[in-house]
């Protein structure tokens, strides 16, 4: 029989209702093993029948369960002794499992705390390392600048408005790149910014704005490139700078 035929025949229903002949019951068992669809159909039928039986349930008299349990003891001696024999093994296993669980929990707790501490430490250290790395990069760049055989240092000295101020220019003779070390300039007030000028044939040419990464210190930075210049100067301008110097000149130096 095809599975569709089996399903529509009613034999599954008959089986679930308990009215199938032994031959039919054997057939159903075989089909269920062979066709998952048939097994699924039978399952649905059985669930429906189960619900039907539940809807017609009649509670047994009170005390029936206790009597049943008591009556099971006498013929159930074999099972009982089996149970008693097996019990210590299971209990040992259960006890061992509990002990292992507790030990495991304790270790979990310890290692979890350790892990947390180590993680925090690790995080702090990597931050420190990153900072040091940045620092190193800056330093080595600065060092290369200073040590380069092409670099021409130009000292810019303080003028009458800022006698203590000083700055240094590194002018790369081969490329014309200009680096400024404004480390000895006072921090520009809020809204103001230093601007570098190159004096080319007596006229100031914009050399770019000097910036501070953290608003507290100035580090060596690359400015605009000059092919030639006779002098460099730095003025304090309003933020954003100007095409021509307007503010106070702080430092100046001739080449």
């Amino acid at each position: 029989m095809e599975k569709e035929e089996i399903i529509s025949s009613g034999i599954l229903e008959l089986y679930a209702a308990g009215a199938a002949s032994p031959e039919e019951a054997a057939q159903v068992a075989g089909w269920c093993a062979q066709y998952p669809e048939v097994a699924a159909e039978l399952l649905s039928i059985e669930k429906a029948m189960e619900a039907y039986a539940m809807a017609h349930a009649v509670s047994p008299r009170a005390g029936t369960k206790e009597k049943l349990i008591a009556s099971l003891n006498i013929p159930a001696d074999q099972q009982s002794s089996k149970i008693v024999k097996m019990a210590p093994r299971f209990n040992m296993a259960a006890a061992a499992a509990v002990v292992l669980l507790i030990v495991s929990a304790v270790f979990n707790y310890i290692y979890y705390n350790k892990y947390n501490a180590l993680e925090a430490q690790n995080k702090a250290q990597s931050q420190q390392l990153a900072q040091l790395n940045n620092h190193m990069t800056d330093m080595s760049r600065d060092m290369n600048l200073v040590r380069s055989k092409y670099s021409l240092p130009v000292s810019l000295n303080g003028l009458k408005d800022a006698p203590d101020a000083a700055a240094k220019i590194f002018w790369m003779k081969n490329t014309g790149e200009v680096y400024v070390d404004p480390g000895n300039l006072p921090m520009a007030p809020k809204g103001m910014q230093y601007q570098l000028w190159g004096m080319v044939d007596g006229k100031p040419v914009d050399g770019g704005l000097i910036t501070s990464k953290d608003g507290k210190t100035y580090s060596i930075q690359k400015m605009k490139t000059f092919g030639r210049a006779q002098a460099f100067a730095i003025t304090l301008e309003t933020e954003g700078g100007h095409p021509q110097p307007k503010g106070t000149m702080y430092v100046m130096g001739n080449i």
Partner: protein
Amino acid sequence: MKEKSGCRILHPDSKFILPLPSNVKYSEEELVALLREQDQGAFSYLYDNYAAALNGVITRMVTEPQLAEDILQEAFIKIWNNFAQYDNTKGRLFTWMINITRNLTIDTLRSKGFKKQQKISQDENSVSGYGDRSMSAERFDSIGLKKQLQYLKPDQRIIIDLAYFNGYTQDEISKEMSIPLGTVKTRMRSAIMELRKLL
């Protein structure tokens, strides 16, 4: 309570442990696995959840309360002792249990001298006098499905009940309902299809 083997909580007289938290709910697979290991807690659960449904079948055929109780007990003892014979590839646990209960009830009635004819005639009354049955239905635990079941046609209810609750063979159903033997399967199918729609 004495302790045996140092740790097992077995009562010296009652080797079965009854209490099981009522909120425990087993899946059919879990329940079967536990019963295969002869787990008493699972047996207790089995009783709590299915005794009333199985008793429903017994009380359909047995009117005498003491006899019904004895049959229910014996059915559970059979279920417990023969659990290894349950084959879950051949159907659900409940189907197996209700088959055991139904067969045991019929066998007991026979051995007590109730002739099959008597049983059938007794059932005839209840089948033909459908009003009587609904009266006895008052005793049944009420579930939502019960209300729904009124939508089943009487013929559909009768064919299900004759087989499922009264253990009629196909032959007996055919005679009882005056339908050809070949029609019993298809009638049963349409009745149970109708029942499934109500669920």
